[in-house]
């Protein structure tokens, strides 16, 4: 397994794989999000309690759940980078962090615009909302730690440690609605039992959740390419590429 994976840890190989895969990811993400959003906005039935305001769910839940998934993937990459000194993993951390931060911001803003008509307030300091805000600060911490060292090996180590320590926040977000009484409603999608949602609402929601997931991969891949090039600027293959594409 490791023997098979090892060549992909080589920067040039990783870059080429990213170039090949990026268009597939972008295409799949756009298709899924387009279908899911249109379905959710126009065709999904109106909620009997919340009226049409519930349609915010089709962007709120995907961005919130994927902000956590992105964090876990970033932390896994950080762990691989720290333990096995795999540099491409460090660069993956740097590429995922801004994407996750934007998703967390989207989750917070769409949550506020859903909270205002339903709860009567944009924001409350309850467990779910506060822990999601902490997630945003963790992302910002990782981004700024990575940006503040000139030596990127050291920067990746510092950012990686913060990313791994921050994992403690993920189960807190996930179970906050069960552990503490909260304004936030508990999860409607359940993996082990039947979901508390009719399938005409559930399918577009799942499409968008999956679509946002692929979108994270797509944007991270695009950012990863730039990161690989920036960190290998002295290598001949990057210099060739820069001479060919750099000056227009």
């Amino acid at each position, binding site marked *: 397994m490791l023997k098979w994976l090892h060549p992909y840890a080589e920067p040039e190989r990783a870059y080429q794989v990213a170039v090949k895969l990026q268009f597939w990811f972008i295409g799949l993400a756009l298709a899924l999000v387009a279908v899911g959003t249109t379905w959710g906005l126009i065709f*999904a039935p109106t909620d009997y309690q919340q009226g049409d305001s519930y349609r915010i769910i089709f962007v709120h839940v995907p961005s919130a759940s994927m902000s956590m998934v992105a964090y876990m993937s970033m932390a896994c990459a950080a762990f691989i980078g720290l333990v096995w000194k795999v540099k491409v993993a460090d660069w993956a951390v740097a590429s995922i962090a801004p994407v996750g931060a934007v998703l967390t911001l989207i989750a917070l803003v769409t949550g506020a615009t859903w909270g205002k008509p339903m709860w009567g307030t944009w924001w409350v300091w309850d467990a779910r909302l506060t822990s999601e805000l902490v997630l945003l600060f963790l992302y910002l911490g990782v981004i700024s730690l990575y940006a503040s060292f000139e030596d990127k090996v050291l920067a990746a180590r510092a950012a990686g440690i913060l990313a791994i320590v921050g994992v403690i926040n993920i189960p807190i977000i996930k179970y906050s609605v069960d552990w503490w009484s909260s304004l936030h409603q508990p999860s409607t999608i359940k993996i082990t039992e039947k979901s508390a949602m009719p399938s005409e609402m559930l399918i577009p929601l799942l499409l968008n959740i999956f679509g946002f997931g692929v979108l994270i991969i797509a944007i991270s891949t*695009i950012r990863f390419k730039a990161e690989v090039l920036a960190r290998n600027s002295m290598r001949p293959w990057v210099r060739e590429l820069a001479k060919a594409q750099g000056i227009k």
Partner: protein
Amino acid sequence: MQFESFSEFLNMGGYGFYVWFAYSVTFFCLGTLVIVSAKGQANVLTKIAVKIAREERLKETREI
């Protein structure tokens, strides 16, 4: 189709402002992120190319 007319669709059962605000923030943020990320590679390559050009100019002046 859940809506009778386009204006009803925009109105979102009275929640139009909140729904459209949420959707526009989402797609504005995602769009900006995609554009900034897509430009990243070109920026990096330009920086490296400028650096290479500078090194070559330095080498030339040294040779004279």
